[in-house]
């Protein structure tokens, strides 16, 4: 397994490019997300507040960046009997961390990406959480078209070659409206996302995320991205600081697993759901 993981990392590192180092440019940064719920691929993974820090380091290769990232999810408080949790009921704390490598690069009007991600779970299975036996790995790729500024469609594919052994597809489109004020660069985005399970559904002898083969969910989410201007950053020698606010998310659930929003019987078959709030502060050195 280790050799397979290393091979996947290497493939991700040199994916799809004859990339050669040009000017050595490095970037590093940290993201800190504070969200009222933990959603992932339309699934409600934790129905209480979560803190999700991440750190990354990147090197510019060719026309893109090779980035390594460590990301973690921490459940605030302790989940009650009616709540969904990865940590386990009455447990809380660190539940999941991911290690990933991703290479993103530009080719004409397209942004292409490929990578590898390792999922590690530290919840308590005996208390209803997600434990080490759920650890798994995926490789992924994405294509985004940025030919026009106000709308960018994207198609992504994740393939779990480990415990889940299946593929998940996602189609997304993002509308952008710059609302920048002098000294502060910000944009409003409206993202539309649709998921499709192609083997990550329930099957014998494997872990699964969804119930059925086919569409999983459709979501619409507004996002505000507010950043200090590049000029201001230079002027005061400060790192790049970005605030991302997703005030809510409207989601049409399709798969029965995405319909679960809590353990209460009344929340087992929700057609739609709303996430209240997600705020991310990103600080980057480039």
């Amino acid at each position: 397994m280790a050799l397979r993981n290393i091979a996947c990392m290497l493939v991700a590192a040199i994916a799809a490019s004859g990339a050669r180092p040009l000017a050595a440019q490095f970037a590093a940064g940290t993201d800190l997300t504070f969200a009222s719920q933990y959603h992932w691929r339309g699934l409600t993974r934790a129905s209480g507040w979560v803190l999700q820090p991440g750190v990354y380091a990147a090197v510019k290769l060719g026309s893109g960046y090779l980035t390594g990232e460590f990301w973690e999810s921490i459940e605030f408080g302790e989940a009650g009997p009616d709540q969904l949790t990865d940590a386990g009921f009455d447990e809380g704390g660190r539940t999941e961390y991911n290690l990933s490598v991703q290479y993103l690069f530009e080719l004409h009007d397209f942004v292409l990406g490929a990578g590898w991600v390792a999922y590690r779970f530290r919840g308590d299975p005996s208390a209803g959480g997600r434990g080490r036996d759920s650890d798994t790995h995926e490789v992924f790729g994405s294509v985004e078209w940025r030919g026009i500024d106000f709308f960018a469609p994207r198609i992504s594919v994740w393939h779990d070659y480990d415990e889940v052994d299946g593929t998940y597809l996602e189609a997304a489109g993002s509308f952008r409206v710059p609302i920048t004020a002098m000294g502060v660069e910000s944009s409003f985005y409206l993202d539309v996302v649709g998921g499709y399970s192609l083997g990550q559904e329930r099957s014998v002898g494997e872990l699964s995320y969804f119930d059925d083969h086919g569409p999983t969910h459709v979501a619409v989410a507004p996002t505000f991205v507010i950043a200090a201007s590049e000029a201001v950053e230079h002027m005061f020698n400060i790192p790049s600081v970005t605030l991302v606010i997703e005030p809510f998310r409207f989601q049409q659930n399709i798969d029965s697993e995405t319909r679960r929003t809590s353990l209460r019987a009344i929340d087992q078959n929700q057609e739609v759901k709303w996430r209240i709030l997600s705020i991310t502060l990103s600080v980057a050195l480039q």
Partner: protein
Amino acid sequence: MTVEWSRRRLGASLLACALAVVTFGGERAAAQAFVADVGVRHVPAQSGVLQAGFARVDITPPPGLGLQGFGPEGREARGFRQRLYVRVLALVDAHGQRLALAVADLQAISPGLHLKSVKLAEGAKLEFHELLLAATHTHAAPSHYFDAAAFNEVGSSLAGFDKNVLAFFAERIATALDSAFHPANLEPARAAWGSTLITGASRNRSYEPYLANTGLTPPGFPAPIGLAVDRTWTMLRVETLRQSDEKWVPAGAFSIFGVHPTIIPANNDLYEADLHGYVNRRLERFIDAEAKLPNDPQAPDPHPDDPRPHSVHLWANGAEGDVSPTWQAGTRCPLPRLRRGLRPSGARAPRRADHWEHPGATAVARCMSLAFEEVRRIGDLIADSAERLFLRLEPALSDTVTISRAFRALELPGHQRNGLQRLPDAPLAGSAFLGGAEDGRSRFYRWRDLGLFPAGAEEGAASRDVSNKDLFQRPKRKALPLLYGILAEGKLPTLAQLMVARIGGRYLVSVPAEVTTVASFRLTEAVRRAATTAGDSVARAVLVGLANGYLLYLTTPEEYELQHYEGGANLYGGQTLSVFEEEYGDLTRSLFASPERVSLAPTRERLHHTPLLPEPGRRSPGDRRILGTSCDANSVTVRWEDEAPGDLIPADGLLLRMTHIDRAQQRTVMWDDDLRVEVSAGRGGLFRNQNEWKARFFVEPLGQFEFTLLERQRQSGTTYPELNHPRFELRPFECR
């Protein structure tokens, strides 16, 4: 608050100076200590005639500093192209009156730099009011030395005041002053003023405000846009008496002509003297030829150690506030554009912010290449006219030129005259300033807040605020109101060092600002009227801008009213010009009075030091070695390893040359002081060799070349030990 003394009183005692500080300095005295060593000396002339001395000193700093003038678009310098110099003409008349005319390849002069240069020039024995220090206004010279903190912080993309940058320039300017006034250089001289019109090299870039003028205007007003400028090239030709054969030989000249040296666009990232540098070099070689001095770079090693001309030509900028060179539109590179961009991101990272997408290398190379052609085209046009004028002046040369000057340091905030407040309590930067001038728009040009509301970063109506409560500043709209307190409050210049110098029949009106065409006409008219009233019936005045300080722009009240770029950058409002007219009138009248009118310059306030100048000695010097050569269709590039930028100071001497070998003949084609040679240093970094340098020669890569790294000695006075590198050669290499 300004303290004025007469010359006789000045000499009385330092106690009087201290008393004046206490009596008149008021609250400002604590922050602005007055110069203590003021005393006016009459230095006896060594002959009964005019004496003159010239000097030219290299002031090209190491790479790594921000280029001043294009605001956030100004890049960090990677190296240099046409080197930066300070040129000095020292004059002493038969009565011992002294005057130093100095022009530096800098974007502007700060009062602190003016003062420090005088203080360090111990050999020249100058007083601060005997130095007219002007900037050419190239936008490819470093920032970081200004007294006014805002200029250090927003004048370039690299922010901060560095006391070492200030010292670097002051020391070299002082060296030039010392050299020009050195007895060995100061020779009997004769001089003549003259002028010619140059058409086609400049045009008015702010034509709508120009047309709005209704008061005193120049003859021919309103003129077409290409003629709506002061087209007068004024020149003082100087010859000195060669001791060896007692012959008069051309030694140099001092010229004034108003035009922005902004042909090289903001995308440039090399120190560069721009149009002024090119014209000065051409005229210096021309004067050398007139003096029959060997200076031809095409000649086989005329001066193996230094190919630079012997003669010195100083081009000071004149009424250039609203004057651009006639560059073609293609010389302006595309601006950065805010868009979704590629940023480093992990698999689980949230959305990244938009980023500024900078124009691609091909687009930049295209506009830069065209800009170089324009420097040559416009520069040749100017130099041709100037050379003809130089020749025409020979019959008028005279050794009986006399000198006088009057100087005043004026605190501008709340300035009063006859008990009436004439200027606002504080300077104010207007929003029109944010978008940049036509020569170099900033990325904020025509910005809209929230994508809807004009932020005033454009010229005209959007930048006017008729509800501005400050009547002195109305109708200026405040720039960046939310950030103004951080960016500009208390950080703009408050001191104006005004000077009128009379050399023979010309009055030099030295103004610490960029003055528009019509404003310049009004100022020089005020001086001419004052001189005429005082008895000089043939008085002729010419304005020298960007001298002894920098207040941004000076416009007429009518131009101010429209709030174009220049009006937005007129910090003290539309009435500043009339205050200056009165002050310069007073200074001119004082030239005829005895004693001469002189006031003292405050020292600069303390600024926070940000180390930006590369420090010497961080790495031990390695051996020089060639790392490789390459060529493309129109250039040859050589990479080599040398000392780090902190140790290899370009100003310490020429670095390299390229020789073309044709059969048995060798011909030096380029030195590293040329529009066609780019020298840059590798920057520090994990995978970068900060000792790596690169020279790109724009020469047809056919045949054999020899690249030579010259022996280099460090300038004495620097704090690090002298190093001599042996000369070595790479020969021959062939690029095909």
